[in-house]
């Protein structure tokens, strides 16, 4: 009941925030000098392609890029009509990607599930590895198990992702015949799901999951370990021990839940990072996720694509923080969001 009211209230705040973010996003995208089409024209001229110039000019008119920035913003969001009527974000028209020459919705839609797949598997990897190891490292702190886990984690952390990927690709291919780059064997692309395709995807996922996951896992593990160590000597753990609980269950039920507080706070970041996380890694690994599309769009100032992805990520961020705030109360009943003493 209280939570329900809280959720409704947060939704309203969210819309407000989203609006502020939309202004900022638009401003930032347009911060670097030039715009997509003028860059495009320059590039076309530089490579001697007279032909494309006419097309670029055509698009400039059609997408109102010849209007002042504030009008472009209003058209983009859908507050005022563009050259061909209302068609903004709030009308459900996400715009056109000049770079890919397709509607923004299509591009994002295609890449979305791969993105979620890659990052979800990375997140699962992080949790699957970091949770048990972090708890173990805390329970067996200052033993070789603890040190080994820490060392391996830091090894992953201290290796630049791209280098790590290259190493894994190179030796993985050499010794285990793992594929290099991509998310599935090319012959499966556009094919319906089949057992072989799933296998291929899983095989391709190994290295990216590992590369994206290691740093996250190491970070989570160490933090969890620290938080767990704080909890382990608390009296309530002794009580639980006096009940005769087995260590694994005991740790999971009592101190882990306490130690989890800071991580729940960050669960809000999980959603957006599913989309925009690991951009650079995806770029260097050649994964067809949203990340590389975003980077390309930003670099070339493909403003509708970049804008939409950024707004999408922002929305997820907002939803994420809301979820994390609600989870926080569920996790720790003592937490209230009111002011002090109120």
């Amino acid at each position: 009941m209280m939570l329900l009211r809280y959720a409704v209230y947060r939704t309203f705040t969210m819309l407000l925030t989203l609006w502020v973010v939309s202004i900022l996003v638009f401003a930032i995208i347009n911060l670097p000098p030039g715009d997509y089409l003028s860059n495009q024209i320059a590039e076309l001229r530089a490579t001697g392609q007279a032909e494309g110039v006419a097309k670029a000019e055509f698009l400039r008119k059609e997408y109102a890029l010849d209007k002042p920035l504030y009008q472009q913003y209003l058209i983009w969001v859908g507050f005022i009509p563009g050259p061909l009527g209302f068609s903004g974000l709030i009308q459900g028209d996400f715009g056109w990607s000049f770079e890919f020459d397709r509607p923004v919705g299509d591009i994002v839609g295609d890449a979305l599930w791969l993105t979620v797949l890659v990052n979800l598997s990375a997140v699962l990897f992080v949790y699957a590895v970091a949770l048990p190891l972090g708890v173990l490292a805390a329970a067996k702190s200052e033993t070789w198990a603890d040190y080994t886990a820490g060392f391996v984690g830091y090894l992953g952390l201290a290796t630049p992702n791209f280098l790590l990927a290259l190493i894994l690709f190179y030796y993985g291919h050499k010794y285990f015949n793992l594929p290099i780059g991509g998310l599935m064997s090319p012959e499966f692309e556009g094919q319906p799901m089949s057992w072989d395709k799933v296998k291929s995807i899983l095989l391709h996922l190994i290295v990216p999951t590992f590369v994206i996951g290691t740093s996250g896992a190491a970070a989570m593990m160490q933090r969890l370990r620290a938080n767990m160590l704080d909890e382990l000597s608390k009296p309530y753990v002794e009580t639980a021990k006096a009940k005769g609980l087995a260590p694994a269950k005991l740790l999971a039920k009592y101190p882990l839940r306490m130690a989890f507080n800071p991580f729940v706070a960050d669960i809000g970041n999980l959603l957006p990072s599913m989309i925009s996380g690991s951009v650079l890694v995806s770029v260097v690994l050649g994964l067809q996720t949203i990340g590389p599309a975003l980077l390309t769009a930003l670099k070339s100032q493909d403003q509708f694509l970049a804008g939409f992805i950024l707004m999408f990520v922002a929305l997820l961020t907002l939803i994420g923080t809301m979820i994390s705030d609600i989870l926080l109360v569920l996790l720790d009943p003592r937490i209230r969001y009111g002011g002090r003493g109120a």
Partner: protein
Amino acid sequence: MTPLLQVDALKIGFGTAPAVVEDVSFDVMPGETLALVGESGSGKTLTCRSVLRILPEAAQLRSGSIRFDGTNGPQDLFNLSERAMRKIRGDRISMIFQEPMRSLSPLHRLGNQVAEVLRLHRNMNRAQSKKVVLEQFDRVGFVDPERAWRSYPFEMSGGMRQRAMIAMAMVAKPELLIADEPTTALDVTTQAQVLGLINELQRETGMAVILVTHDLGVVANMAQKVVVMNKGRVMESGSAADVLGSPAHGYTQKLFNAAPMIPEVATPARAMEHDDIIMDLRNVTKTFTMRAGGWRKPVTVTACKDVNLQVVRGKTLAVVGESGSGKTTCARVALGAEVPDEGGEVLFYPGDGADPLPVHGMTPMQRTAFQRQAQMVFQDPYSSLSPRMRIGATLTEPLDIHGIGTRAERREKAEEMLGWVGLNPEMLKRYPHAFSGGQRQRLSIARALTLDPKLLICDEPTSALDVSVQDQILSLLEDIRDRADLSYLFISHDLAVVARIADEVAVMRAGVIVEQAPPDTLFYNPQHPYTQALIAAQPEPDISRPIDLDLVAKGAGAPTTWPEMFRFDALEAPALRELEPGHLVRCHA
């Protein structure tokens, strides 16, 4: 018959320091109750914990042996594997920890925590265990077991948490129950109920009990054997009749002499003057919204209702009453830690004719001044001490906050305070967890006193102290009161203590004050059935005069069963009437 538990030449120490428990031996027979009494900090808790091998990380079991001879045959508890030990914990031997407030997980509902034992050792499913636990909750005196099941520990009063802890330890019907001061936070009628429950279980299952307590009355009523400890050593041990009847050791004699008693009162006292009051609680009502809900409709609890209390300058107002009746809540409201519901207000009179200050509407400046003059001793000293702050820092903090003295002076003051409460200055370096329960309670008192306050609210300040230390502390408090005109709002369950220190007593039950009078009047002529029940339930340290636990446990029964004159239903209580000058009773005309 072989003893169920044999503790032999136990020696426990910390680091390189001399042992804190030395050469402790005793036997517990099945079905028997052994009382462990002794000075605060003498190692009782450590001894108990070593039976379950749950000692602080820094503690070392230096030597000795502990054997347990339960249904599974004799076992050497010191050399048992962890796995085998887990089978014993909670199942064969269970323990009630001394500080129930800290010993419960703050994130889990009480029901969940208690039922876990059953699910673990008795293979019960959720529904079965819930049924058993609710029953147990009822037997330890929860008026609304269902609410207790759903509550989080922080939503419960001190005594309620303690009862949950008791329920947790007893619900699985262990062979040996180690109860480390299980009733300190309970009023005497509830205490009687719990002790009765223990007795009952002993009769039913042949459970043996190690009962750590400071209350010699409880010892007299419960124990067959007594072990007296002091400074880590056993001073005297033997059958209860012998030890209580004719203490042989000097320490034992001293201890028993210090036991306070409710005085035999010949005449009622004169009414109290209420002209120079220092604090005035007016129509204080406090309603809490339970967190238990989540997505459901919120449930509210009225902790206290329409409480009017006046603390007279230089005098002691004692509040006694049922566990969960809102005493702590009133105290916290009085010092501004909680905001009362609309309509209530608390006024503080700085004295010297200055205008009264509304505690809940002060400017920051006024607040700082107020906080210097009014201090509180929390019911739960462990929680109120910063776990990561050394005691030295904790004790100097109030001075630090108010910018009093230099570093060295603060330090000296801290040492002096420690001396006052009978602790060693060497302890300044320790963290709160490295103290015994009674020591922490004294630390809490010491901290409250460092600022030389004008008003001190003590929430059960001596419950964890053995009678001789308690005597010392009470003398100290009286001394300061007389010397520095300090006023107390004193919450306690121990009527004997109240009788000694109070100038006026208010009795609370179910969130309202049912009777209020000077102690002598009250003990001479208790009017309210609840007050009468309380006085009757106070155990006496005389083995020849046992109280009938079952009888007094009934207390005064539910308010709806009281004589017509006092009866009330839910929160619709009759008004408080002045029967004779200074003697208020809640009754119909």
